């Protein structure tokens, strides 16, 4: 079960992502060439240089639900409808964090609590959002105000450490409590219509719709092992699908089909509804085609039902999750186990245009967690799930290989103002090649699951990127027996940040060990340095030793963890703590001596090419748009089409 199953609830409202944007350009990590201008508004595309990193829900409420085959829409249907969906009220809000300036396409939410509150503000439910990156990033919006983030994405994870009100008066919530397992709940939400223009009310805010449902033991936590519809990318961009609609996932339980279309349909603008695509239908093909379908005659599909996307309040009340009761449609029931689900647009001649189709032959492979941070010598499991038409695929061969994904050569536009002095090149990723290790192949078990051990080299990757520690690795994966012409979601690959190894010295000093770390952080996170403690100054740091001690000792998942960016190795954090805990005769942490002038660390391998020239608006010169355009430029240079496997 998952958020696609009943009992489930849906919510809508706003979110705030008050991200800090100076670190959108990797070259700002070079301390030697950092200048205060980089902290100014709109410099190098930095549209929120004083961002706090806070991610939170605003004015969010439960708008609908499903229980025992009934749609719930008002408080009269169930007291849960109308409940507020809020974050923590006794600690700091969650934080939104990029994996790395060179991998900004998997931003994760850390430390977010989700709570449901009734009208009397009594807490019915609380849970901790297990940190998860967004997925399914696409260009959902074609127009809007300047600086609108036209991309949309979704998050799927589980709520952990669930707490229920003992006297739940909501049948929906009681059913949810009884249905879920392992003390977890499944949660998914879509974010879109985000404003980056400081002059509009929506600045740093966007819309969110989401769903919460039961979680069952053994299921993936970050996607649904079910029916996966994958959009064909256009030639313009891997994030702009050919037919203007994006991916969807769903479940067929033998009696009904439930689809999540919450991140599928394009919107006119952040402040309006969907684009009018005319009537949209869900159908199932009557055969299992060997290629992507384009136009099909009516005889080639069995219609399941309409997508009521133009019905007022449909999106708000369902978050785009639509169930189709198939009790009266024996043909669809018999076809669904072996034929693809389709999103159809009826044509004047009675035929259908296929806007979206289930993955070819129903085959699908997905890594559950796809973002890893590894200290030197650390190991983690990559969990992959293979399925065919939503049924676990046992004994399937899986192939894994290195990929650059959106990362390689990325992390800044082609110009930086003022230019870095000394020159800071955009580093190569994935060097040295043996920084992480994993098996090149695996086979799925009876549940369609394969576990692949991922390990970081015992000595770490060294410092191949020069001015920025750690190294990024991408791991692509696919079914070995994937059908020819299969369309993959270009975002489905694994991102690994392997930390540079460091051991805390017995007596760390400010000049030798702490200042380089704190200076970088102070440069890139000025909200802290300007208003709380100037991390570049020993004297300033000495005024906040206790608070720093607390923040650096908090676990990664705590919202107050330092650094907010969560990009410091365990060794570096241990060094900071030891420095804080090892005072000199004056009672203050050791100052040490300024180092002799040394040449700046060599930035990157000499083979690293300059970033491809890309055309960007001044305010886009770093960040996600730049990533997409750079990806396209690199593909073009390599002679590959977008979406083509590398």
């Amino acid at each position, binding site marked *: 079960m998952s958020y696609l199953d009943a009992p489930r609830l849906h919510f809508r*409202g*706003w979110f*705030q992502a*008050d991200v800090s944007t100076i670190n959108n350009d990797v070259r700002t990590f070079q301390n030697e060439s950092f200048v205060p201008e980089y902290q100014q508004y709109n410099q190098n595309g930095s549209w929120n240089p*004083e961002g*706090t990193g*806070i991610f*939170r*829900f*605003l*004015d969010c409420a439960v708008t609908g639900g499903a229980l025992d085959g009934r749609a719930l829409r008002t408080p009269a249907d169930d007291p849960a409808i109308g409940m*507020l969906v*809020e*974050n*923590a*009220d*006794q*600690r*700091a*809000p969650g934080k939104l964090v990029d994996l790395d300036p060179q991998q900004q396409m998997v931003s994760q939410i850390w430390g977010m609590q989700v709570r449901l509150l009734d009208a009397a*503000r009594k807490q019915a439910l609380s849970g901790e959002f297990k940190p998860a990156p967004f997925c399914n990033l696409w260009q959902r919006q074609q127009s809007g105000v300047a600086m609108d983030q036209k991309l949309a994405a979704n998050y799927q994870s589980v709520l952990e450490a669930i707490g229920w009100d003992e006297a739940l008066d909501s049948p929906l919530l009681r059913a949810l409590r009884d249905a879920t397992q392992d003390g977890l709940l499944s949660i998914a939400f879509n974010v879109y219509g985000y404003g980056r223009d400081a002059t*509009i*009310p*929506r*600045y740093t*805010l966007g819309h969110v719709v989401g769903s919460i449902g039961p979680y069952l033991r053994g299921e993936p936590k970050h996607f649904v092992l079910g029916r996966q519809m994958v959009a064909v990318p256009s030639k313009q961009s891997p994030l702009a699908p050919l037919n203007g609609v994006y991916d969807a996932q769903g479940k067929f339980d033998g009696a009904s089909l439930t689809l999540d279309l919450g991140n599928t349909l394009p919107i006119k603008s952040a402040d309006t509804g969907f684009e009018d695509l005319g009537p949209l239908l869900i159908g199932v093909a009557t055969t299992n085609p060997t290629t992507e379908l384009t136009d099909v005659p009516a005889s080639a599909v069995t219609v399941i039902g309409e997508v009521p996307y133009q019905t007022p309040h449909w999106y708000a009340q369902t978050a785009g999750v639509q169930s189709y009761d198939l009790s009266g449609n024996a043909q669809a029931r018999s076809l669904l186990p072996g034929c693809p689900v389709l999103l159809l647009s009826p044509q004047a001649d009675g035929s259908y245009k296929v806007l979206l189709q289930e993955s070819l032959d129903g085959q699908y492979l997905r890594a559950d967690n796809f973002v890893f941070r590894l200290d030197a010598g650390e190991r983690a499991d990559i969990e992959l799930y293979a399925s065919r038409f939503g049924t676990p695929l046992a004994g399937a061969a899986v192939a894994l290989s290195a990929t650059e994904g959106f990362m390689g050569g990325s992390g800044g536009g082609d110009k930086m103002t003022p230019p870095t002095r000394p020159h800071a090149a955009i580093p190569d990723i994935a060097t040295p090649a043996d920084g992480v290790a994993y098996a090149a192949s695996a086979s799925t078990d009876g549940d369609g699951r394969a576990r692949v051990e991922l390990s970081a080299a015992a000595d770490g990757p060294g410092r191949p990127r020069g001015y920025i520690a750690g190294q990024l690795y991408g791991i692509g994966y696919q079914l070995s027996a994937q059908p020819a012409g299969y369309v993959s979601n270009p975002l489905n690959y694994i991102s690994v940040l392997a930390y540079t190894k460091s051991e805390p010295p017995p007596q760390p000093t400010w000049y030798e060990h702490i200042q380089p770390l704190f200076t970088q952080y102070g440069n890139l996170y000025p*909200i*802290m340095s*300007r*208003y*709380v403690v100037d991390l570049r100054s020993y004297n300033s740091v000495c*005024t906040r030793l*206790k*608070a720093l*001690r*607390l*923040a650096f000792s908090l676990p990664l998942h*705590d*919202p*107050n963890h330092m650094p907010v960016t969560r990009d410091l190795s365990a060794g570096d954090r241990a060094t900071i703590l030891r420095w804080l805990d090892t005072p000199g005769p004056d009672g203050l942490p050791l100052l040490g001596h300024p180092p002799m002038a040394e040449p700046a660390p060599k930035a990157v391998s000499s083979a690293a090419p300059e970033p491809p020239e890309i055309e960007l608006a001044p305010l886009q010169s770093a960040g996600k748009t730049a990533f997409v355009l750079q990806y396209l430029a690199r593909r073009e240079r390599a002679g590959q089409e977008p979406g083509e496997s590398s």
Partner: protein
Amino acid sequence: MIRLRPEIISAIHAVEDPIDLHRYLQCAVELEHSTIPPYLTAMLSLRPGTNLRIAALIRSIIVQEMLHMSIAANILIAIGGHPQIDKRGFVPDYPGPLPMDIGNGLIVGIEAFSMPLVKNVFMAIEEPEQEIPIKLSAAEQGYATIGQFYDAIQERIRALGPSIFVHKDAPPQVIAPRWFAPDKLFPIVDPDSACHAIDIIKLEGEGTALDPFQAPGEPAHFYTFGSIVAGRELVVTADGYAYAGTPIEFDPSAVWPLRANCKIADFAVGSQARTRIEQFAYNYSALLNALHTTFNGHPETLDRAIGLMYDLRVLAVAMMQTVADEASGQTVGPSFEYVKTQGGMP
């Protein structure tokens, strides 16, 4: 000198049942908290990198007010009470009088830093019973001081004796050596420890009748504010004390032009100003919630409260740079309203 109604003092003196003492210690918790919002606002309104000495001095006072609030709460816990912090009524309705109508008409608001604010409000709040070297005039007698309020509580605690201290059933007190020195925040177990703790509150706020310094180099709050107004540190001279030490620079151009006493309701729903001020108020309320939990059986929650305090500081930044009124150029000031809903957009 700040004054409160004398009947409060008489009422404390009349307390026979320790439970009746709870409300006065709750008042003490509220009183110690009530000065933090105005002081904090003044400190936060100083633009970064400027007026550093003034900001540091106000901050040191705020930290001590937090200590005093903790001491008062611990005494309340020690005699079987339960501090109530997560309530709308816990926070004064600024601008207005401090808890217990203290101040004989003194109205305390939420304003940007200014010398008149420090002189007329902050110094009035902290004014000692006997300002050195000025002696109390006969005309001003008849009102009670905060010092007398605490004197009365001390007297009653001693009179009621050790039996009012609940040892076994009381929730744990908040002892936080990471944040407060053990000689300042210590377990309250008997009349001696309670009275000693109250002495610390009195000493740090008003100082003594003889010495304006609460510790070497560290004037009591009244004299710290006095030094800010005078523009020089307080020093010992041959014939007493004088504001004649190191200059304390003030750059009036480096203060955010906050509109005074902003309330959430002043700003249109859906505006950036509304979003920012609501976020600040929600975070502040979360801080009170965390403190309530801290002082009601979960001292470990103090670290979360500290995290929220730091968040409050950075949240103030965006808020104080958001224009509240195009015509005047004023920006949004904080609102210390207790809110329970995380709103800000329609």
